């Protein structure tokens, strides 16, 4: 029971991180039908920058967070302008390869800057296990879960209670009509892309103390996180959070009780099954084709 609880908590924490990255895919997809195919590499960038600022330079974690968020949002704005907008404007799907190319570029640059070895980042909130009777929880896990849920609540507040958030939803519904209503749809597109990059970066900050930081860390994470919006439906943030956490928990239990090699194969099988059964995801609304 204690072991079960332990791996369940680890799994939920991992799932919360997947959910953060997953909602990054969803943010850009709902607003402008675009996905950042290199999003996992932005997670990696967030992790590596955390290493440099928090460990190498010894900056406070809050300062690190603010710095990483600022840097990544600026980079996200530039990336959208250079590698997404020109293609979307021309009606081309070139952005698929372009966003992937940016990701590969990051990997190579990270290898040159930080080397290929894994770097260790200590837990931000102490290594001591919090004890509740027989059960113990790592504070880092609690921090991850709390931060992730906090980020989702903030996102929902943003969507439903701020003017910019309403603009996001309007553009998601119809970019052309929102333009006619005076909404800066281009600005929304850029902002949503930068927001996705920032969410991925925050996931990177949270994940490095439990994994390690290395240039390849984002590849698999970015891929697994993509399974979640496919299963949950790309347009449903709450569905993504629920599915992300459930997915992490199941994955943790499988590798805890069965055999860790099989869990990724299971994830893929799950995705194929859901796509076959419900192409719009479990929480998605089927879209009718028009003649």
């Amino acid at each position, binding site marked *: 029971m204690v072991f079960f609880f332990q791996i369940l908590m680890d799994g939920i924490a991992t799932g919360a991180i997947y959910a953060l990255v997953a909602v990054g895919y969803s943010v850009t997809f709902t607003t402008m039908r675009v996905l950042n195919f290199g999003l996992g590499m932005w997670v990696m960038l967030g992790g590596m920058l955390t290493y440099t600022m928090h460990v190498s330079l010894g900056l406070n974690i809050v300062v690190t967070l603010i710095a990483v968020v600022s840097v990544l949002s600026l980079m996200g704005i530039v990336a959208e302008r250079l590698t997404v907008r020109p293609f979307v404007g021309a009606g081309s799907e070139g952005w698929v390869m372009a966003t992937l190319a940016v990701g*590969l*570029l990051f990997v190579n640059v990270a290898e040159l800057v930080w080397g290929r070895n894994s770097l260790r980042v200590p837990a931000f909130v102490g290594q001591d296990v919090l004890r509740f009777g027989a059960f113990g929880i790592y504070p880092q896990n609690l921090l991850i879960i709390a931060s992730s849920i906090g980020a989702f609540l903030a996102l929902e507040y943003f969507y439903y209670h701020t003017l910019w958030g309403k603009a996001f939803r309007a553009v998601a519904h119809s970019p052309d009509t929102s333009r006619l209503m005076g909404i800066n749809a281009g600005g929304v597109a850029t902002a949503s892309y930068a927001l996705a990059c920032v969410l991925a970066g925050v996931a990177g900050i949270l994940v490095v103390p439990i994994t390690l930081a290395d240039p390849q860390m984002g590849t698999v994470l970015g891929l697994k996180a*993509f399974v979640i919006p*496919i299963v949950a439906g790309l347009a449903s943030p709450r569905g993504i959070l629920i599915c992300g956490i459930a997915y992490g928990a199941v994955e943790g239990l499988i590798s805890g009780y069965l055999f860790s*090699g099989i869990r990724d194969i299971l994830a893929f099988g799950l*995705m194929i099954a859901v796509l076959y059964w419900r192409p719009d995801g479990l929480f998605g609304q089927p879209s009718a084709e028009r003649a």
Partner: protein
Amino acid sequence: MSMSRSTVRLLLVAGAIGFLAVPLVFTSSFFKFLFILVFIYLIVSIGMNLLIGYAGQFSLGHAGLMAIGAYVSAIVSMSLAKVPALVFVGGNVWIGMLAGIVSAGAAGAVLAFPALRVKGPYLAMVTVAFGWVIWKVLLTWTSVTGGDLGITAIPRPRVAGHIFTVTDYYYLSGAAALVALVLQRNIVLSDFGRKIRAMKYNEMALEAVGVSVHREKVAVFVISAMFAGWGGALFAHLQNFINPDNFQFFNSVFFLLTILFGGPGTLSGPFFGATFLTLVPELLHGAEQYRLLIFSVVILVTLFYLPHGIAGLLPMRIAERTPVKEFTAARTASTTRPAVGAPLAGSPAATVPVVKVVGVSKSFGGIHALEGVDLQLETGTVHALIGPNGAGKTTLVNIISGLYRGDRGTVSLLGKEIVLTSLHHAARQGIARTFQTIKLFGDMTVREHVMVGCELQSGTGLLGAMLRTKSHYDEERRRRAIADELLELVGLSDLVDVSAATLAYGHRRLLEMARALASRPRLLLLDEPAAGLVASEIAMLAGVIDRLRLTGLAVLLVEHHMDLVVAVSDRITVLEQGQVISHGEVETVRNDPRVIEAYLGTGEDHEFVAAHG
């Protein structure tokens, strides 16, 4: 910028001499190896080109399919090595390679069937996941794959006791690449090739001529996977070992890049892409640590500055950006079927309506688009469906053409009740349609548009097309003859070889009609064919509709243009708010007070009557 035939021939001869001479000039095995890699990657790239360049689908998992080809070939040929007789003639390796190709195709089918229900970006991600899982399986299923050490002591091919040297292998893989190039050309120029190219431009329009898009997608994916497996099999027996490192995500990106860079949807693109991207990085010694950097820069530069790849920079004939013309003699073949009319099976009694709709209803959310609509469409009759905007006309057309399913009511075809499951199902049953917004296949030629819809009963199929059998040529000639006949019927004979993208608006409408006729329908649904046409074009359209009536076709005409309706219709049905408010002969409907009220309100000034009475 076109090149003369003799220049092309000269280049081909030079290429052949170069190919044969490479092993003599570059005696070091490093270069031979490098060229063998070019050939292997070329084969995989050709598979990618069919899938991405021509069919407009996506894959970032081809390294996984290549791995399946390589591992199966290695494992099968090693297990068969216990049979001495087989080994002596090299049978174990050849059987292994074949098994590798077939397995990759099978894996492609298993992946494609569910994955191709999603499009574009989703598909890309699913294939990424596939490639990655294969890689993971190779790493973890140690008892079969050898884990990260891979498989060693893979046999080289041999013929009658002679084991292939590196030079032999160079010629073997070079010949294989040549065969792959020829197959690529044959596939692209076949009926299947036309369908996959059409699919890239407009899936719905392709469905409407009776083609199951999903089936064609799976087929092209499987073919593409077999090319990947072929490359993998050749790769396995080149060195005597393979391991998972050779089949990583990056390799899938590489194959995609060869297509983007070489020129997607061109016959020569894979050659340029695979050659350049294999040779250049290898020749830049010491650049290993900048490999990803170089490739990502190449991707971005290609996307921004070379949208048609290297092939796009070359003169047409060399690059073969548009397929060469297959036939010079026009209309030599005799058609075994009349182009229009003559229903597929049995001739229905004249009294049985072609399509009968009884009590059909359809709601979208709370809106009742159709409520208990009856409609009867008869042979050799033009039936107009009119009504104000939002009356439910297009919804009814969508139900009869299989795009929507009605909530209630029945549709009968030749007296038999039928459930139409999709556009292509309806088209195959003899119900063809055009669209309110014109849907054409990009820059395919006018004739190709019509040929796509020509489904012949005796299909020799893809294999015949790949091997260029006589019956393939016969079929193509028949399709061509049918297409030309239909294009003559709609008056587009002068434009058969023109790209549809350059057609005038009115001609596009007519082309859509000719294409719909190619599936030899019993019923043709025309959804606002006169929209946007000028008066002279409408007159032409009326003439075409009149001619169609004479062939015995049933026509349902949805139209706002009353001149056309009155000129060509035998019967009229009027819809308002989802209900039939009047139907019958033109005169009857025209004088029906409910129709006048629906169109004009209850005022005295009856413009509709005045204009046509």
